[in-house]
Each structure stands twice: as C-alpha cells, then as structure tokens.
C-alpha cells in the first residue's frame, strides 16, 4: 500500500532543457517519482516526493532542484528554537 502525504507542497522541479536523459534520478529515487520518456526524465508523481534530495545531488547537469531536508517534526522544532535549518539535535 502506497502511503500518500500532503498534496502540492513539495519543492521538486525538473528543467527539461538541461536534462540529458541519463536516468540517474530514476535510479536513486526511493518513491518512483520519475519516468524516462522520449530521451528525457519526466515527473510521474510529484506528490510522492519526500524531498530527500538524491535526484538533485546525483544529477550531473543540475536539471533537478529540490529543497532537500528531513521531514521530521522534531528536527523542524529544534531548528525553529535555534533559528537554524532543521536538525536532529546533535
């Protein structure tokens, strides 16, 4: 059973102009967000993205961008208290 989270919130973007269709994003995505269509990557299910950032980090052309981070309430609260990015606490 695929579990879905909030809709239309993720910051994932794909610039088709830059994409060379190497398929790395398909390889690293844990939620099968991308498909390869006509030699370029396409977004199949944007809402399934959990913003782990694997695709952006491994895109050699920087065609994929996402504000990556931990989707963790505790980390976000710590970040808010300290005025920093979300952090697990150490």
């Amino acid at each position, binding site marked *: *059973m695929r*579990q*879905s*989270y*909030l*809709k239309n*919130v*993720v*910051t994932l973007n794909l610039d088709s102009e830059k994409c060379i269709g190497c398929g*790395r994003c398909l*390889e*690293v*995505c*844990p*939620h*099968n967000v991308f498909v390869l269509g006509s030699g370029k990557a396409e977004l199949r299910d944007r809402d*399934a*993205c*959990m*913003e*782990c*950032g*694997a695709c952006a*980090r*491994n895109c*050699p052309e920087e065609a994929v961008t996402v*504000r*990556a*981070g*931990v*989707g*963790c*309430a*505790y*980390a*976000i*609260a710590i970040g808010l208290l300290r005025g920093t990015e*979300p952090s*697990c606490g*150490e």
Partner: protein
Amino acid sequence: MAGLRFPQVSTRLNRTDILGSFKARWGAARMSYSIAPGLYAVGRPAAASPVLVSANYKMSFDRLRKTLSGLDLWILVIDTKGINVWCAAGRGTFGTEELVGRIAQVGLGDVVTGRTLILPQLGAPGVAAHDVLRRSGFNVVYGPVRAVDIPEFLRAGQKATPSMRAVRFNLWDRLILTPMELAGFLKPALLILGILFVMTLIRGGPAPVWVLLGRTAASFIPFLGAILAGAFLTPVLLPFIPGRALAWKGWLLGLAGTALYLQLTASWQERKTVLLYLLLLPVISSFLAMNFTGATTFTSLSGVVKEMKIALPLQIVSAGLGTLVLILTLGAAL
C-alpha cells in the same frame, strides 16, 4: 589472498549483536553503536570481487553482513559517526567527501582491480556519483534499498528491479520503530504521573500512601491511553486512518480513545471531566503522532512544515485551555 590483510567479517549474528540491536531500538546507547571505518573482507574476496559501501552504524552493518553468507566480496565502511545510511546521507556524513577520502585512506585502488562501487540507494542524497567518479576514478552504482536484496542484485549482474528501488513502510517497518517513540515519551509521562499524584494529594486528603498511589495510577490510565494512541496505534494503523496529516490522524485516534474511555467509565455526565479530557487527551496523541513524521519514509520537509504551522498552534491552544480547566477544577476542590 588479498582478503587476509583486512579484517574478516562473519555473516552470522551472535547473541551480543542481537541484544545490541534490541537495545538500540529502545534508544539505549543508540548514538555510540558504531564500528571502525575501513575495508572489510566477507568470505575470500579476490582483487576482482565487488565492493559494497556501508555506514559505520553497527545495526546497518549487521543487517548487511547477515545477508552475505556464501559470497566473496569487500565492504568499505565509511565514517558516518555511527549513524545509519539514510540519516547520514541526509546530513551529508554519508557523502562524497567522506567516501572519496576513505577510498584513498584504505588504498582501495591498489587492493581491487575493478573500478565500481556498490552503494546503498538510500545513500544517494549525500553522494554525487559523478563527483565521486571525477575525484576517485570509481564508478558508483546504486544497489537496492534493502540489504536483503543484495545477493539477488549481484546475481542479476548488478541490476535492481523496481521493487528493490522502492522504499516501503509496511506494518513491520512501522511497528519496529514504535519503541523509540514510546521511549521518547517516558520523561513527560513521569511528569504527568507526578502532577496527578500531587492532584490526588490535594483532592484526597489524608489517606494511606498505597491508596493515594492507587488513585494516581487510576487517573493515569486515560493519559496512558492517549500516549499509546499517538505513539503506538497511530504508527501501526497509519494507512488506515482517514486524512493525510499525521497530527490529524493522531488527534482522531486520540479522540476515539477518549470517547471510549468516557463511555467505559460512564462519565459523560461529568461535564468538567469530559471537557478536560477532550482538551488534553487527543492533543497528546496528536503531538506524538506528528513526531512520527521523523520516522516515516514518505513525509517531505515542506509537507511537515505546512502540517506543523497549522497543527502546533491548535495543539498549544487546546493544551493551554485543558490546563486552565484543570487548575479551575483543582481550585474548586480546595
């Protein structure tokens, strides 16, 4: 044999490994459960044997080696400060920098003839494969998400099936994470117990200690129920609870639990009790369920931020009003 120069790894877990894993699940010594970084040999690896890369969190390493029985290969353990692959990748310690440095430090290029590294797919958020290739000459192949699929992945010529690539979050995956959630609420639960004991003292007047303790325990039952609803039942029943936000799902289960408690104790007539419990109990479940976002495999940062912006103020208001009712009730009792 090239393998003999490096520490040999058993593919069997002993009692100490299993006990250590159990303790870490409850949060005991979890942050120092690590092994030394470096190159390890599984079976009798030769210069052409595959190289797997892993984190130095001992539970991750144990999960990995357990699945490798009968195989001859290398494991390059990189220093992630004792943190698992996914979390370490998220903060960049399972990353390009550490990997490239560790390859050089163990002299991997002189030990093996191949120029391919198999990384866990969940390490990808921290590692830029093209940068590793450019800086070390090693080509990165992302293997399966779960260690148990590695033998099949190797047999298939280092090809992962779609199911090997997908992160799951089934009943067992959720259940195994709940001890950490419960352990995290131990201190606040003790605090609630303390407050309830003081309240029993104020209300009950002079009575033997065991009577007071008994009453305290009885008044803790609804709170214990709220904790279990948020930190245990919500994670376990997650896909079956209506809605999307975890704070909402927890609140809903907490509300159901509160209603059940009021029904079972026939206390719907006591308006103050009803109000108090409705304000305090579901919100405890809601807060705990919201914390489970850190353990799920599908909640995004943007999503959790949005959820918290709405849920947190509501939780604070509800808890604040509940506390106010509590103080007023106590005041009336004096």
